[in-house]
């Protein structure tokens, strides 16, 4: 069998597997099983992005789509468990179901038309991005696109993260405002989890920062690296080696806004010194971008970990 034919079979296999896992996730009886299906779908989808030659998207999908969102949904399914039987017993009225059917069909149909109507070959700015990448000093055209050509999108993405954490915190009961998110975890201090949580973070932190720096020239970046740092922090919290911070801490608030703020400051400096918002002077483009990314990785790690930790559930430090 030739390599192309083997690759084709592999792609068809992935496609069928994705459809099967998606069907499983949608049709499973319990929320928990659906979430397991969703996480599996995310990991498979990451492999498909690799097959499509988009490793940057693949890493993000595995970390955010499968890992982080899966964790959020797992938490949600644990919270919903007591009400799940009652919710499963309810059947919405015919009108509601018909409306849902129409809405779902309209979205799927619209997407199908949009995809099928694309001219072939699809219009692309990829050659321009690759040609322009050297001007930013970055070897990875994806990083150049995210941090230079479409930097405003990346900035807004960071603002969305900030809005997400505000949304999570707004669910806090008044009594616990300023308190610590999540419950205090129990862990056997001599158990496996604690051992793992002592062993892994040094490796994980190095790898997270490595992803940030390698992102300049290869797949990776602050977002993927930040996700790994967040995971290491959450691991330490789950093993009771660390605790979630009280949400009114000054340093915490500082780091949550530091990423978008650094971006905005650089953007305004671009207006003052250069041509436009977020225009980098060409000679310093790479150090400026790496600087923003360094601040951003801390912001991303703190924000993602706190989104997973949830709204405050207990009092903060009694000394304050």
């Amino acid at each position, binding site marked *: 069998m030739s390599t192309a034919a083997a690759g084709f079979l592999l792609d068809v296999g992935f496609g069928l597997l994705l459809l099967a896992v998606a069907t499983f996730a949608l049709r499973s009886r319990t929320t928990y099983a659906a979430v397991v299906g969703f996480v599996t779908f995310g990991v498979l989808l990451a492999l498909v992005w690799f097959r499509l030659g988009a490793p940057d998207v693949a890493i993000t999908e595995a970390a955010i789509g499968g890992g982080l969102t899966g964790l959020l949904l797992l938490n949600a399914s644990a919270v919903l468990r007591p009400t799940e039987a009652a919710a499963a017993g309810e059947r919405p009225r015919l009108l509601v179901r018909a409306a849902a059917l129409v809405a779902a069909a309209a979205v799927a149909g619209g997407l199908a038309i949009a995809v099928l109507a694309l001219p072939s070959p699809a219009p692309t700015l990829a050659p321009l991005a690759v040609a322009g990448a050297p001007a930013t000093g970055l070897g990875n055209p994806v990083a150049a696109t995210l941090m230079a050509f479409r930097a405003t999108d990346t900035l807004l993405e960071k603002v969305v993260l900030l809005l997400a954490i505000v949304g999570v915190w707004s669910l806090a009961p008044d009594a616990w405002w300023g308190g610590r998110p999540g419950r205090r975890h129990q862990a056997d201090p001599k158990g*496996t*989890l604690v051992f*793992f949580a002592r*062993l*892994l973070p040094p*490796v994980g932190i190095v790898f997270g920062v490595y992803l940030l720096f390698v992102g300049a020239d290869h797949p990776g970046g602050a977002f993927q690296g930040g996700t790994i740092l967040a995971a290491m922090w959450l691991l330490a919290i789950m093993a009771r080696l660390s605790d979630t911070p009280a949400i009114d801490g000054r340093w915490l608030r500082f780091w949550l806004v530091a990423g978008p703020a650094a971006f905005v400051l650089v953007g305004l400096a671009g207006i003052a010194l250069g041509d436009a918002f977020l225009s980098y002077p060409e000679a310093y483009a790479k150090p400026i971008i790496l600087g923003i990314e360094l601040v951003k990785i801390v912001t991303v790690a703190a924000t993602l970990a706190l989104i997973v930790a949830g709204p405050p559930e207990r009092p903060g430090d009694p000394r304050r």
Partner: protein
Amino acid sequence: MTLVDLFSAALIGAGVFFFIAGTVGLLRFPDTLTRLHALTKADNLGIGLIVIGLLPRVADGWTAAKLIAVWVLILLASATVSQLAGYSARREKESR
């Protein structure tokens, strides 16, 4: 086919065998602990054999080191997760 190809094919084939065996065990075994037992065979032996099979094919020592690091991390993660899942399964059984 060179000797290196044969070596890789044999080891990767053996690795795939352990993955299939582990998956069959996961689907067929009766309870959580025996299913975990099946899964760890796939994780430990399957990945290990595939990594050894891939080692002579990589471009440089740096890539080889990365492959071995992946193997060690998977070993560590799967051993920990198996312990935790087994612990939680036993606690659930006792509380019933």
